[in-house]
């Protein structure tokens, strides 16, 4: 049916056939080839993770000598820290806002760009330029545009509204949140756009013809033909973006530095502050485990839906 399904189903569908035919020496080579990469992953992420379990349960703090076992105290400290809770709330709000806006804009843009027109080939590469720019630099870009006195934003808004505008974009709530979302949207809407456009182009033209023959309106066509056909790729795009968005760090670091106070801390930024600025390493490690488990829940929920689109 839909080509999009193949994107997700590929690894599983092929599985049964070639495995049955492999000889013993083949199987040895197969594992030999996997070994280097698997060892590297083990060394670089699994081993540190296991080590960090130990760190989370002892006292590893540059201000206090020794590594005494403290049980769950580190976890308790994190859970009772109001800034930790604020960071978590910020992470949820910011990632939800970013992904929602990016999805809406990306879908609209994909729909608008689907049909060929003159100049389309020229506009297409322009639209995906932000994807190639490092997030740190994107943060710098938007700081430069928004923050007075360097940015022209307030001046332009003033012209538009007919009265002087004095917003301090990076230090005034809610404007700092809007600034962060804008920077993220600028960078990642093209990602949504590219994936959704690929999905839209893969829908068979016959489906639209059939809808037209049946007298479906533009909205009905979108609702009952386009959306269901696009669903696997919508899910894919949302999953990838959401998994990235909850890790939001660079833009915060560059644009607001978490400030004013701790008002724009995200989970990643909070853990960085606790760990690498204040050197409460055990507390930060315990916090990163909580964050890891929370994101694992999200990942499991999303990926499980993604891996079996056929059964929907």
């Amino acid at each position, binding site marked *: 049916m839909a080509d999009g399904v193949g994107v997700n189903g590929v690894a599983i569908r092929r599985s049964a056939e070639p495995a049955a035919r492999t000889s013993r020496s083949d199987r040895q080579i197969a594992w030999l080839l996997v070994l280097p990469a698997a060892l590297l992953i083990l060394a670089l992420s699994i081993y540190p993770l296991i080590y960090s379990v130990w760190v989370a349960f002892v006292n590893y703090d540059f201000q206090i000598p020794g590594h005494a076992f403290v049980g769950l105290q580190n976890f308790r400290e994190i859970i009772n820290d109001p800034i930790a809770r604020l960071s978590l709330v910020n992470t949820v709000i910011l990632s939800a806002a970013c992904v929602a806006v990016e999805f809406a804009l990306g879908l609209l843009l994909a729909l608008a760009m689907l049909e060929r027109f003159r100049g389309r080939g020229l*506009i297409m590469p322009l639209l995906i330029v932000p994807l190639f720019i490092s997030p740190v630099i994107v943060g710098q870009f938007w700081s430069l545009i928004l923050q007075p006195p360097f940015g*022209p934003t307030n001046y332009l808004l003033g012209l538009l509204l007919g009265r002087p505008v004095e917003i301090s974009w990076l230090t005034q709530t809610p404007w700092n949140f809007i600034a962060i979302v804008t920077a993220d949207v600028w960078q990642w809407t093209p990602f949504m756009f590219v994936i959704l456009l690929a999905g839209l182009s893969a829908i068979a033209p016959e489906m639209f013809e059939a809808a037209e023959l049946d007298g479906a309106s533009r909205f009905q066509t979108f609702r009952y033909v386009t959306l269901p056909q696009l669903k696997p790729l919508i899910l894919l795009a949302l999953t990838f973006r959401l998994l990235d968005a909850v890790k939001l760090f660079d833009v915060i670091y560059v644009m607001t530095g978490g400030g004013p106070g701790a008002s724009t801390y995200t989970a990643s930024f909070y853990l960085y502050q606790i760990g690498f600025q204040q050197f409460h*390493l055990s507390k930060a490690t315990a916090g990163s485990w909580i964050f890891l488990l929370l994101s694992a829940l999200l990942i499991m929920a999303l990926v499980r839906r993604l891996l079996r689109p056929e059964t929907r």
Partner: protein
Amino acid sequence: MATAAPTSRRGPRRALGFEVLRFGFIGLFVLFVLVPLYWVAVTSIKPVSDYLTTPPVWFPAEPTFVHYTAALFAYRGLEGLTNSFVIATATTVLSALLGTLMGYSLARFNTGGPHLSFWVLSQRFLPPIAIVLPIFLL
């Protein structure tokens, strides 16, 4: 797959208003993408006296390139670029090498079934901060 635009055959029934909306949206979005790039580019060639003016200087009367030499040499930007280049090359070569070996094995022999490939992919989902902390300590 992505051959001819699928909806092009709906052409004749297009309403003009819809087309205006469509191209208006595309135009606005292109502007949204380009404005930051323009502002950064134009700020980079402004003499210092043009930074803080109201109304803003949209294009400097006397463009200068001193900031580029300053960024590259005085602020050690060249060093940063070299480091980026070395690190990027090394990681790309290394991961392409290891990834090719593993990818071939996974695709050809389906080594480890779906679980191994999922485990490898799941590394991508880890928040970097969870890995950086213990690596820093080790």
